[in-house]
């Protein structure tokens, strides 16, 4: 009963939403719309679950002095601090005490941007160590990546035009090859990935509706 009722709800809800997509009768679409409104509310509650989970995981880490526990204190302090400031002082710029907005613009935004910018350093290091022409496939990847990297920045076009003979006789060759790589092999691969992922999503949805996939009903993740 504990599992049967949720399975029946899942099946009926899924079936109803599929019917609503294909049958544009107001009686069906309006109620489907109403159900989608509920989803917005349910999703909002997952935020509370996320916060609870974060507090539990890091609370346990601090309690048992696991490696890096001091960072967990910083994380929880920031979570409580930003949340408290947001709740009591407001999150908007024109609030009376725009502390949240100030912290966001002057602390959080630069920190996040700095984290993202670390990618440039790691990509450079990874490119140096791992991008090797070990075999035909790796060489192909290496050449394509180099053309894209150079072809997508103005320096590449500028250097290309400076090349003797090639630059003057085929001034758009680099741009054309770059665009061709993006439009033909890349698009073909991406299309395949997307179709595959979509078919996977449809199959997963059907499995869930038919009760074959039940991991969402358990805490352990199994059947």
């Amino acid at each position, binding site marked *: 009963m504990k599992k049967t009722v949720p399975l029946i709800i899942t099946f009926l809800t899924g079936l109803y939403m599929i019917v609503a997509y294909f049958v544009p009768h107001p009686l069906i679409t309006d109620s489907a719309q109403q159900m989608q409104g509920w989803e917005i509310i349910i*999703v909002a509650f997952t935020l509370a679950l996320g916060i609870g989970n974060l507090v539990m995981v890091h609370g346990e880490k601090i309690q048992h002095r696991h490696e890096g526990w001091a960072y967990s204190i910083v994380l929880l302090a920031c979570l409580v601090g930003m949340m408290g400031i947001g709740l009591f002082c407001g999150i908007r710029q024109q609030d009376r005490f725009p502390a949240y907005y100030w912290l966001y613009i002057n602390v959080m935004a630069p920190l996040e941007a700095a984290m993202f910018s670390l990618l440039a350093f790691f990509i450079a290091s990874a490119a140096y160590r791992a991008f090797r022409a070990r075999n035909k496939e790796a060489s192909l990847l290496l050449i394509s990546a180099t053309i894209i990297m150079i072809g997508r920045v103005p320096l590449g*076009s500028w250097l290309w035009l400076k090349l003797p003979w090639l630059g003057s006789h085929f001034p758009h060759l680099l741009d054309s090859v770059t665009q061709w790589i993006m439009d033909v092999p890349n698009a073909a691969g991406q299309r395949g990935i997307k179709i595959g992922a979509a078919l996977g999503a449809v199959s997963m949805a059907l499995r869930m509706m038919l009760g074959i996939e039940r991991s969402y009903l358990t805490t352990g993740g199994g059947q």
Partner: protein
Amino acid sequence: MKAFFAKLMRIDRRWIFLAMGLVVGGALLSSIVFPTLEISPDVRTAYDLIDRLPAGSAVLYAWDYDPGSQPELYPLSGAMLRHAMRKDLKVVMMGHWPNGIPLIERQIDEVIKRDFPQKRYGVDYANLGYKSGQNVVVITMAKSIKDAFPTDYYQTPVDSLPLLREVRSLRDCKAIVSFSAGDPGLTMWIQFAWQRFHIPVTGGCTAVSAPEFAAYLQSGQLKGLMGGMRGAAEYEVLVGRQGLASIGMTAQSLAHALIVLFIVIGNVAYFAAGRRKEGQP
């Protein structure tokens, strides 16, 4: 000699970090600017979509990114917002990333309040803020914006804003522009706003995610795309006001060149030191 190349292959990565830091830092501090970019067809398509809309048309701009992607997407959202204001379009703003919403306020300050002080909030533009629900929010907005956002970001009922009394649903928008750093973002807008309601979708994304949109561009489901900082720089050229993206392109150019140089050195050292068997580092 072989020993030298073998040593070169094991170079401490901190030297690589230092080289990258010096190149990027030097480029940002210097005043070197590479010649004007050639405008790519995808950027031109996106520009034309906005440019050809008659004055007074409503567009929806979605800030679907957070500060992590700010260096790439913030200049683009600024340039596109400027373009919309110049064209006298009505801009409804929102975002699917809760951490990105204050960036809308910042951009309103830097673009609209500074350069278009005659534009009035609630009449020429409005900020709806964030609502959880992703694709469901899009579907709900297609029926009624008020159902998804009863109030705007400043807690003003949307019914009291003249702009949102005219723009009652997403279907009243002539185009949707998403500045997308991932999911939820452009893909979601294409799948729901374009595919279900046929509202033209365009936008920008981080350079790393640009390749995944090639299929959507070719099928016409996505009306143009600004990929990464280059796309933003090209848009700045079209708008006629070069800003952060154009400045950043010099640093990005040199960073790309340095990475290519590292790849070349790495491979020269690899072959000179003697190739290793598959699976060996």
